[in-house]
């Protein structure tokens, strides 16, 4: 994407923070890379924040890492004050969590029965004739580097001394995902029909011809519902995940990701997502 904006783009990478020089005073800021390329508070016209702190600076003391993030956030905040930010800030979900978004989505789309439960409160209210999955709210790893992937569970087997995010399991042959770029929607689908159970530990292949997703056409009603949802959330970027329920063919809303990945949908640039993102940032 940086090449599309070249030579007017400045890319600041958190994980190689030590390559950059920064001067930041109450009157303004300047960032310079090793090539001498720079950007400053007078020349900046747009800012796009992309998974900036999604890596840990493992060799950096946490205090120093916090200092680094602080400065980057201040510079980003300056661009927000200038009204030149596109996309969503990295902490957008601090103000809009999963349950709040599900609530908004339920105005326009079907949503799965969902519950966050501490000490088991609310679990007995869940319809007993449904199947449930446990999901992670924050996608944080455990202390030994493990992740809670969405897993089918029996409610009676859950240790209520832990917090749980439980959701009704959706039987589906199709994943749907919709990338929102400004006023444009890019819906895609992926078949789950050949899935061998829900074992996610598939072999990762190192290929260049993978196209897991194909374009999907939203009907008028579903498109309208999605547009109303993003309007209510006051966003114009991000990715919505849905499924088509097997028995009813209804579109079921699952999640909105303010900074969800999107390149994977159109890796070979066949469907115009990158072009749309570039135009969106420029707009």
């Amino acid at each position, binding site marked *: 994407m940086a090449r599309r904006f070249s030579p007017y783009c400045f890319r600041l990478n958190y994980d190689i923070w030590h390559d950059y020089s920064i001067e930041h005073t109450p009157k303004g800021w300047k960032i310079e890379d090793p090539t001498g390329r720079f950007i400053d508070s007078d020349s900046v016209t747009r800012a796009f924040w992309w998974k900036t702190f999604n890596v840990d600076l493992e060799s950096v003391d946490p205090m120093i890492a916090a200092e680094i993030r602080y400065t980057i956030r201040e510079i980003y905040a300056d661009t927000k004050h200038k009204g030149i930010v596109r996309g969503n800030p*990295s902490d957008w979900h601090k103000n809009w969590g999963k349950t709040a978004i599900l609530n908004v989505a339920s105005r326009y789309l079907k949503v799965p029965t969902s519950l966050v439960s501490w000490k088991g409160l609310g679990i007995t209210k869940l319809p007993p004739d449904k199947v449930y999955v446990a999901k992670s709210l924050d996608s944080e790893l455990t202390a030994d580097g*493990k992740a809670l992937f969405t897993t089918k569970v029996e409610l009676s087997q859950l240790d209520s001394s832990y917090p749980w995010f439980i959701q009704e399991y959706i039987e589906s042959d199709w994943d749907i995902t919709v990338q929102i770029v400004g006023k444009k929607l890019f819906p895609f689908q992926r078949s789950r029909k050949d899935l061998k159970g829900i074992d996610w530990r598939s072999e990762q292949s190192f290929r260049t011809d993978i196209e897991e997703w194909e374009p999907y056409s939203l009907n008028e009603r579903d498109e309208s519902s999605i547009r109303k949802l993003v309007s209510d959330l006051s966003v114009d970027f991000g990715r919505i995940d849905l499924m088509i329920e097997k028995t009813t063919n209804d579109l079921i809303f699952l999640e909105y990701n303010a900074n969800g990945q999107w390149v*994977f949908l159109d890796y070979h640039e066949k469907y115009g997502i990158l072009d749309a993102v570039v135009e969106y940032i420029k707009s």
Partner: protein
Amino acid sequence: MAIVPTLLTPLILSITPATINVPTPSYDHASQGANTVISQYQTTTITANGTQTFDFNGRPNDADSDKGRD
């Protein structure tokens, strides 16, 4: 003696993410991109109730992974 079944906890359900071994692309400041060819790998995994994307280390990589750390 009755056997008390172990109740499930989020930690028990958590598993080691799949990782892939690819050379870490090196960043080139001149082009502001990677200076090695990056081949695509399967970035999404079919899980129940959602689409999840992962980084090279198998770490979930969607919005909620962004750490505001305020």
